[in-house]
């Protein structure tokens, strides 16, 4: 995957389709699509950590929430003039990544394996949620930004791009959609390169057989920690973008239900390949969105059932399995 003319042709076709899509649609649906794109970074990050490196993290929303709050605090303090929101974005993503590296250091250098990774990351998320929920009082403020406890923060500025004829403010809509699309393409290609490079091969080797990889002379703890940090930074990117998109973040974005969401996307989409993860996540999020609109209270039930179904019937993920089947059919036809 990721090499050869077929990949690039498909890639260009998909990006073109995504680029012309707003021309045939109204502003509201495009805004919705932008919302889906916000989440894909977290899904891709989890795809790297879980699918490639084999460490199931339940804590992606911890980094999501941390970066989301950081974006809020920083932008409220420094304002949105001169496009400083991008600085805030970079800082909050860095913070998410640094926090993930720290947790990753303790976990992987402590030789935590398998299912325990899930438990530790889940505990981190839930403790962070509890912490943010009780920051209601006025003493919980950083600079001029009140954390507001359970009610969450609001009123932070959206992303702005400084432009010659006045700043372009990226409210939910077509402009934001294009910016996000460009970011998704950039992140996807970057990950693709990284995962096709030796780094990605080592990650897969660790997933398949950690002991053997270690015998070959790789410090697997370092690789796992780096992958975890990368996943955390990507989750943080989603978090900061989410805050910028809705100008709103609450502790519940780190809660149990939210922590489940990325796992559902990646599990259902397919985790063994970043392309399947990306496509699957967009599909599942979109499907989920329409479910919440038409049958709000059944959405979670359907999601749970989807998870159980995926695990029992297509353990590699629905989209990944479909891609394999199609690949086999087309492969035969070509021969």
């Amino acid at each position, binding site marked *: 995957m990721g090499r050869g003319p077929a990949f690039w042709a498909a890639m260009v076709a998909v990006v073109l389709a995504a680029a012309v899509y707003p021309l045939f649609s109204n502003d509201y649906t495009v805004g919705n699509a932008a919302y889906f794109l916000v989440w894909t970074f977290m899904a891709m990050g989890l795809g790297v950590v879980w699918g490639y490196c084999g460490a199931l993290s339940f804590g992606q929303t911890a980094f999501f929430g941390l970066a989301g709050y950081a974006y809020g605090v920083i932008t409220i303090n420094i304002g949105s003039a001169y496009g400083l929101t991008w600085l805030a974005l970079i800082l909050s993503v860095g913070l998410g990544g640094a926090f993930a590296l720290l947790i990753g250091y303790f976990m992987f250098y*402590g030789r935590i394996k398998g299912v325990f990774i899930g438990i530790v990351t889940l505990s981190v998320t839930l403790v962070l949620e509890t912490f943010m929920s009780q920051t209601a009082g006025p003493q919980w403020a950083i600079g001029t930004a009140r954390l507001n406890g359970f009610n969450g923060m609001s009123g932070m500025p959206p992303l702005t791009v400084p432009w010659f004829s006045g700043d372009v403010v990226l409210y939910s809509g077509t402009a934001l959609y294009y910016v996000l699309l460009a970011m998704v393409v950039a992140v996807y290609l970057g990950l693709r390169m990284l995962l096709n490079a030796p780094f990605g091969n080592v990650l897969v080797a660790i997933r398949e057989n950690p002991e053997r990889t270690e015998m070959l002379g790789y410090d697997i703890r370092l690789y796992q920690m780096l992958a975890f940090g990368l996943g955390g930074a990507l989750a943080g990117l989603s978090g900061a973008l989410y805050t910028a998109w809705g100008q709103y973040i609450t502790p519940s974005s780190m809660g149990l239900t939210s922590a489940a969401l990325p796992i559902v996307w990646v599990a259902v989409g397919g985790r063994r390949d970043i392309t399947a993860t990306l496509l699957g996540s967009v599909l599942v999020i979109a499907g989920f969105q329409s479910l919440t609109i038409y049958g709000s209270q059944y959405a979670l039930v359907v999601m749970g059932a989807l998870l159980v179904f995926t695990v*029992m019937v297509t353990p590699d993920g629905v989209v990944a399995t479909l891609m394999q089947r199609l690949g086999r059919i087309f492969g035969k036809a070509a021969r």
Partner: protein
Amino acid sequence: MELFTAIFSITYQFGDAFAFLVISCAGLAVIFGMMGVINLAHGEFIMCGAYVTAATARAGLALPVAILCGALAAAAIGMVLERTVMRHLYHRPMDSIIATWGISLIATQGVLILLGPTMQGVGTPLGSMALGDRSYSLYRLVLFAAAVGLLGGLYLLFYHTRFGVIARATIQRPAMARALGVDTRRIYGLTFGLGAGLAGLAGGLYAPTMTMVPTMGATFIVESFVTVVVGGADIFLGAAPAAAILAIIKASLTAWYGQLFGQIGLLVAVIVVIRIMPGGLSAVVKRWQR
């Protein structure tokens, strides 16, 4: 007298935290420690036990009988789930996490749809006693006794009954047990049912002290997982001492700095423990025994 009330207060809080940790992690420890399955629907079994207990208690049953009903209902559901879903996932631990997570989502939201956002609970029985200028709920003492009794009961069950011997054999060497004529599938089912039943028991015991909401299982899940992780695979060598240590940490931090720091203390403890002894307490104890 001043000193006595202070000591009593600290002991009481320790006992309370200890009972909570032991009772809420017993079911998890059986399912995880014996079967190696991480059951993320543990909180939902607890919720199920609590709901059934509250419903039957308000229907007129005495509270102990109602709690038993709650435990049995959770055990029955657990065995059905084992038969339909878990049985296919024993060789795929990661996938079993996801499947139980899915089940937990269905259960929480399903209960919310069927029974509404909250349910009328049962009052705390036994009243309270006053000592110094504070009053203490007597029911908490019952919970402490129940925790100790639970550990004793499980010990007897696993080390002094036929079922216990067969169950331990099945879990340690499934192929060997099968060769000796043990119906291992049945044993797996029963063990999972036992774990689920213990979760239901936890829910029943704590039903009188909590608000009944569909997400109430979440309040148990972190602390029970933390206990199991610190304790390691063995219930008696691991989970029980882990619960004692964590209870001391939690009670003292909660007394000095409040609820939140109690939780953070637990988390830090778990990371430190895993950093220095990855197999949990029970691995250390076993190595030391040898």
